[in-house]
């Protein structure tokens, strides 16, 4: 597999009272990628592949990456409210969205509030719902790199793992992880990584065609939460990727892409 080329641009957009860092690549229908609790720091093969079909937009949520923290954002619903302002200002309506882990929680919350913003939604190992069986792994009981190791079923088997989690992270990356973890504390400390109301609110998202993607070896958010998402969003589908952990997009990129592109391009 070839390395991802870096055919993207990075912008700092003034929006909704702050600056938002956005990576952009490709053209066509907009596809928003919501990054996870560790932030967006690398350009990966699956992102490049998505950009060959869509205009991929990857914002760093306020408090992550180069997007400044907004002190008043203390919950995921606060973050959702901020994004709704940003979407209005940026004219984003009926975009496709793919949300990973905490970013999946964000996408689902937006969908539960204002479903018209999304055309189709993909939730990958999404946090946000308390798993009926098992528990969401406590990321704050591990250091950044130890946590990232646990997100995949087998780091040695993942070609892009050293891109995501270098053996010796640069000081800039280590700092970016800490910045991300701090914002994730603010959003997710208690209740940990979920919102008890979300499953009830998600009925409103039933009009959005939704694909829930989960690795059956996910050690971060148990697969039971994936089933709970499928149940909470009427009409949604669940695709389980065998042998994959919390990050099928790098653990099984081919299967991930064919599943996700098949869903997004269908109809």
């Amino acid at each position, binding site marked *: 597999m070839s390395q991802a080329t870096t055919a993207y641009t990075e912008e700092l957009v003034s929006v909704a009272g702050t600056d938002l860092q956005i990576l952009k690549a490709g053209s066509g229908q907009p596809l928003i990628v919501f990054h996870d609790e560790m932030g967006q720091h690398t350009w990966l093969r699956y992102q490049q592949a998505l950009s060959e079909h869509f205009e991929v937009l990857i914002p760093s949520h306020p408090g992550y990456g180069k997007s400044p923290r907004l002190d008043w954002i203390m919950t995921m619903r606060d973050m959702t409210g901020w994004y709704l302002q940003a979407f209005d200002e940026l004219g984003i309506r009926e975009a496709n969205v793919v949300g990973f882990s905490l970013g999946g929680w964000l996408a689902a919350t937006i969908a539960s509030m204002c479903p018209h913003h999304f055309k189709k939604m993909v939730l990958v190992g999404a946090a946000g719902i308390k798993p009926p069986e098992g528990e969401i792994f406590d990321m*704050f*009981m*591990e*250091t950044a790199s*130890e946590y990232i190791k646990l997100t995949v079923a087998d780091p040695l088997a993942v070609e892009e793992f050293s891109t995501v989690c270098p053996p010796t992270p640069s000081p800039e990356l280590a*700092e970016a992880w*800490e910045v991300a*973890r*701090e*914002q*994730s*504390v*603010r959003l997710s*400390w*208690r209740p940990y990584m979920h919102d008890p109301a979300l499953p009830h609110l998600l009925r409103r998202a039933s009009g959005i065609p939704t694909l829930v993607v989960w690795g059956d070896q996910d050690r971060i958010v148990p697969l039971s939460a994936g089933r709970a998402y499928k149940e909470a969003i009427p009409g949604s589908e669940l695709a389980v990727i065998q042998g994959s952990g919390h990050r099928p997009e790098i653990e099984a990129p081919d299967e991930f892409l064919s599943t996700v592109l098949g869903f997004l391009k269908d109809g």
Partner: protein
Amino acid sequence: MFIGHFTERPYQDPKSGYFGATGLPIKDLTLSNEIYDPEVGADLYNRYLDENIYADECGFDGLMLNEHHSTPFCMGGATNVEAAILARITKNAKIVLLGNILPLWDDPLWLVEQLAMIDLISHGRLIPGWVRGTGREMVSHNIPPAYNWERFQEAHEFIVKAWTTSGPFRWEGKHYHYRYVNPWVKPYQKPHPPIWLPGVVSRDSLMWAAEKRIPYIMLATKLDPTRQAFQLYHERAAELGYKSGPQNIGYLWKVHVDETEELAEEAARKYVQGPSNPFLAGNEGTTNLALASLPGMTSRRRVLPTRHAATKYRGGVESIPYEEQIENYSITAGTPKTVLPKIRYVLETLRPGIIFFWDGDGAMTHEEQMRSLRLMKEEVIPAVREMAAELDLPGPDEVDPATGEKIKANGALVAAS
């Protein structure tokens, strides 16, 4: 000079398998309480209370209590319970809490009430210090570490207001909200009990103490970085236009005295053989790196010169042999005759007006602690008071930390000479 006694009140259970030099390594927050023995706990709580009663009789100015959670090295999870008992059963010593972990309190009005009650029951002997807590505490009581410092500051402002302002009033803050603040208990001391702040690494905390004119006590940090940190406090005080001095700064370190050098060494070696206390630097505890650096807990940039020392000395990962701890003054042990010159060296180096002798910890027995307390009474405390007078090291009960003015015996201020 204010001289205090301190022990962390370790949960000592030799049959637990993790106790002593041959114990199992323990990583923070990984030890199940399934091995907790209530008989051991009951005896130990009473032992430490008895030792504090004796320390009071021995003439210590202060009995220091601290608080940690979910760990065997400190049994003071609900420190105010111990403080309340001491308020009733001791006579003279101040009860120094270093302290309540402010950010943990979701309802600090409880703290307003509990501490005022302790102050009343003790007839004004409470010094209710605050701490910010460690990652262990944030996880145990599930408080977002990114809000630690904000919650600390807001809780402090709220508590002081509740102690000094007649109610009822409302409090609509960021982290705390009350529609009716009007506690039916007020502290004995006016305007409110003196608040002290202990610290180890955070520059924000030290600067805050200097700005609030609150005595700042460094906990078992290395001497030279500690001196540098105190200098920062004094410089900040000067910038703020007041004269700080020994009355503004304190130091806690391990001091054990005994009848012979042999007995002293036998006992003091037990500092590093206790139930996994990372603060004791040398026993079996290992730091949980994730807990030591919870996101947003303390500034990653604004740290004190003591940080490296603190990391090293509290790490347990890089435990310090007993001999080295003797060498570098981390542990001071011996007969009064050999210990006094070492105490003098610490006083000359740091010039504190508040000191705490950290004793009876690790695997030390009640008998060893009681011998040390007796010798403190007979030989150490009187000699240290003379030293402090000679070195001009007034405590906060002699010179007002907020103004630098001398305090008369009756508590009134006189102009600084």
